[in-house]
């Protein structure tokens, strides 16, 4: 913004000079100066001499400073500091519709703590009478006032005592309802045990490690809370009706399967006892469930509609989270000058830390960050030579080629393993051994463990300018690897397995089950070896240090688990149970591993921005899995002897039948469907969305422009004020010049370029 006071850069800023810049303080030689000032008339002399003033600019002896009460009085009378305006603006802001929202609202600034209560009470009372919303919004209004609890209590009591005006009966009922609604909402959110899950564990972790590590655990908890409604949906609409169907079936003789005995190995493979159970798609019937006469429950519609239900639910939750996170951490932050240093200092300390070691580490980490950025500012970066730049980009290109080659190789390996070991033994009608069915998940998980390490090794050569970029590029590559392998698997299942395996949906469900279980085993082994054993080693050999908790890697693992869950729900309705169990086990294992085995990290971690990135990844993976599953539903032929869609060509044919039945019965419905699904309608909707987007974008850029203009205006207003105050001080000083040695007055930083004579 402005860097014109270069002459001060070599002078250390000391307290007395700072005081001199504050017009409240003026140097005096005479202690009864203040009385004199009051008695004098302030005369404005036209021959204001700037150079005279400048000579005595810095010759202040700070022991002789006296607080100028008149100047303070003057400042207090400035309109910008008047409490009435501020309180009015604040109370007006309180009555905006979204009282509890996170958008910025005015606060009541309390300059003088003593007698301000009465003023607040009066202002609030005024507003409450006008808008007549005493019952519902008084609590929220009182809570916002930044004063002590006892004062808030007295304010509230005073306001509640106001005589009740006559309110009509229906308004009274409306208030009663909204009050009850608010109370129930508060109760549900705050008092349920579910949202409060693991609170003490999270607190311990935060105390030891700060907000960075605890963000992983919060993400895990959020994922658990998302999976629970999905599980309840499938359980209520699919599993329970099917169990009822089995027990209430009219014809009990046609039991076309034999349920095998339960041996322990089913937990790993998912076949055997689980094969003919509610676990997999293949077991569900396409008949109608009829428990009591007259109440029919069509299983085939239920299956598809429940899937649509949970995918829609996930879409809404994820879309909402992602948009909220993006808005909070990217949009509101942009559009202004980058303010890195301010947030580094003001938001630097993590108030949740409780351990002394972590506090010291945090101080050290902040110190390092400061040093690093200051050093970066001071060293003049010479432009890299052309040769160096070319070399750097060649290396980066080479690394990317290697990375993509590795990803393709992993994809091919997955395909080969799947074909050889999963399908062929099955087709050859030999009983698949446990080992062969588990090979594919084993290979997949080990690739996901080893290849990212290779990526990290390669990244050391790439010389990124900031560690943030290295982290993001590494995460991108890891996600590409996983997405690639999953894509190969999905292709394999939908194209090859569907044509070759008899009940391919159950097969897919089992594969996904095995993948989930193997992933969990690998996560537990990783914890065991990389964290626990490493701690034991560090106790023995001093050169090995305890591990740091790899937040990014673990969070990406969680995202992968969830994508497997979404891929698998349609083919294995009880997969959410497995995932929930997996998340709970992972939580406890990681929590104890972190506190016992890991050490806090020195590197800074921007929790809020990486959170947005993670939610973004999970949203993208959700979209991909949806596309994969919908492709399976709409295009692939469902297997002909198992599952609810035995007799149909594709699973979606059921819905087509239903819609055509409705069309026959209700003609209007048919017309509506025809219009909505026509290409003209879809094109029109797309054009409308594009127009809205363009409109929002233009509004955003015009607002940015306005912000810049306001900033410039503020700066010049500030200069005006400074100049006028300066002038006043100078005039006072000149007035008492005869009584005291010439005091300090205007240091050069507060000068404005304007010529003072122009004003008189």
């Amino acid at each position, binding site marked *: 913004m402005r860097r014109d006071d270069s002459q001060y850069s070599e002078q250390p800023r000391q307290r007395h000079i700072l005081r001199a810049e504050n017009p409240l303080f003026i140097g005096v030689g005479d202690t009864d100066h203040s009385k004199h000032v009051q008695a004098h008339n302030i005369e404005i002399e036209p021959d204001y001499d700037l150079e005279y003033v400048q000579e005595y600019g810095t010759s202040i002896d700070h022991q002789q400073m006296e607080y100028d009460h008149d100047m303070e009085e003057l400042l207090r009378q400035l309109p910008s500091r008047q409490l009435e305006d501020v309180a009015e603006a604040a109370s007006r802001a309180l009555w905006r519709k979204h009282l509890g929202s996170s958008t910025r609202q005015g606060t009541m600034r309390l300059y003088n703590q003593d007698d301000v209560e009465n003023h607040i009470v009066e202002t609030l009372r005024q507003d409450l009478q006008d808008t007549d919303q005493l019952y519902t919004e008084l609590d929220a209004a009182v809570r916002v006032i930044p004063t002590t609890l006892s004062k808030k209590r007295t304010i509230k009591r005073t306001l509640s005592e106001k005589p009740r005006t006559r309110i009509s009966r229906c308004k009274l009922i409306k208030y009663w309802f909204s009050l009850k609604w608010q109370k129930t909402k508060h109760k549900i959110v705050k008092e349920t045990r579910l949202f409060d899950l693991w609170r003490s564990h999270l607190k311990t972790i935060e105390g030891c490690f700060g907000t960075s590590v605890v963000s992983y655990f919060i993400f895990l908890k959020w994922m658990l809370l998302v999976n629970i409604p999905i599980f309840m949906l499938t359980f209520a609409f699919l599993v329970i009706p099917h169990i009822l169907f089995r027990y209430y079936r009219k014809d009990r003789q046609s039991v076309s399967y034999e349920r095998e005995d339960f041996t322990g190995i089913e937990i790993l493979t998912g076949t055997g006892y689980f094969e003919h159970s509610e676990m997999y798609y293949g077991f569900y019937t396409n008949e109608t469930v009829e428990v009591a006469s007259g109440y029919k429950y069509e299983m085939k519609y239920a299956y598809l509609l429940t899937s649509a239900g949970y995918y829609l639910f996930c879409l809404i939750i994820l879309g909402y989270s992602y948009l909220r996170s993006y808005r909070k951490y990217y949009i509101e932050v942009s559009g202004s000058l980058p303010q890195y240093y301010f947030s580094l200092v003001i938001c630097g300390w993590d108030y949740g830390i409780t351990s002394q070691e972590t*506090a010291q580490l945090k101080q050290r980490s902040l110190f390092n960050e400061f040093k690093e950025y200051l050093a970066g500012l001071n060293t003049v970066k010479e432009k890299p030579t052309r040769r160096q730049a070319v070399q750097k980009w060649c290396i980066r290109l080479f690394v990317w080629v290697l990375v993509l080659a590795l990803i393709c190789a992993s994809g091919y390996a997955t395909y080969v393993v799947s074909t050889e070991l999963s399908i062929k033994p099955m087709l050859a009608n030999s009983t698949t051994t446990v080992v062969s069915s588990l090979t594919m998940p084993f290979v997949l998980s080990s690739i996901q463990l080893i290849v990212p390490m290779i990526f990290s090794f390669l990244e050391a050569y790439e010389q990124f300018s900031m560690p943030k970029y290295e982290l993001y590029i590494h995460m991108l590559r890891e996600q590409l690897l996983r997405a690639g392998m999953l894509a190969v698997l999905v292709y394999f299942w939908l194209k090859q397995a569907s044509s070759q395996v008899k009940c391919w949906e159950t097969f897919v469900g089992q594969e996904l089950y095995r993948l989930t279980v193997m992933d969990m085993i690998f996560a537990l082994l990783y914890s065991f070896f990389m964290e626990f054993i490493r701690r034991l080693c560090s106790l023995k050999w001093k050169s090995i240090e305890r591990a740091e908790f790899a937040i990014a890697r673990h969070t990406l693992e969680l995202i992968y688990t969830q994508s497997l869950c979404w891929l698998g729900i349609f083919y294995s309705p009880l997969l959410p149970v497995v995932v929930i169990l997996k998340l709970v086990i992972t939580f406890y294992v990681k929590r104890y591993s972190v506190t016992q085995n890991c050490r806090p990290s020195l590197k800074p971690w921007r929790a809020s921005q990486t959170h947005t990135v993670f939610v973004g990844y999970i949203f993208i993976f959700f979209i991909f899995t949806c596309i994969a599953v919908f492709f399976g539903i709409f295009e692939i032929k469902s297997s002909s002897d198992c599952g609810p869609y035995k007799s149909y060509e594709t699973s979606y044919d059921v819905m087509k039948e239903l819609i055509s039945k409705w069309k026959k019965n209700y003609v209007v419905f048919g017309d509506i469907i025809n219009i909505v699904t026509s290409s003209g309608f879809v094109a029109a909707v797309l054009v409308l969305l594009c127009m809205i987007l363009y409109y929002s974008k233009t509004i955003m850029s015009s607002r940015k422009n306005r912000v810049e203009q306001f900033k410039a205006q503020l700066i010049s207003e500030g200069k005006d004020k400074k100049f006028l105050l300066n002038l006043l001080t100078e005039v006072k000083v000149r007035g008492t010049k005869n009584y005291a040695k010439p005091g300090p007055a205007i240091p050069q930083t507060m000068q404005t370029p304007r010529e003072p004579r122009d004003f008189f």
Partner: protein
Amino acid sequence: MGASQSVFTEEELDDYQTLTYLSKKEILNVHKKFKALAPELVIADKNAKLPLSKIKQFPELKVNPFKDQICKVFSSSDDGMTFEDFLDMMSVFSDGAPKNVKVEYAFRIYDFDGDDLISDSDLKMVIERLVGENPLTNDELQQLIDNIMEEADLDDDKTLSFAEFEHVISKAPDFVNSFRIRI
């Protein structure tokens, strides 16, 4: 939790709940922690005023470099904090407090000389406290302060008023995450 439930009546809990951003369970938890600081004083009077030396033994405050400022901002009287002050503090630091309330109190905490402006001297104290025993040289300190003022000071008066502070901090994404004490 059952024992401390008999300490407060339902009415008192309701009252606290409406005046703060905490739920009833959290209020009881806070009281439990408050009691742990000085059991004999709190059993005698549930709203006892504990001396600041005892308050500073609270785990989160003990390692916090701004503990004396926090105690100063939240105590209603100079010689100690009552339970209600403590509750107020935990309410502001809790998850439920809106951002503007947190910004207000953050401003007060970082305003070391109490003149309702954050000047260079305040920032210098903040940075010194943040780095603790690892000292920065004067030049580096000054440069940091200059950079901060450049980013935040809109009207060029070398101090940050509350409006400027609020404006800049609303753009800082990590503020709410870091300015929080879980109960």
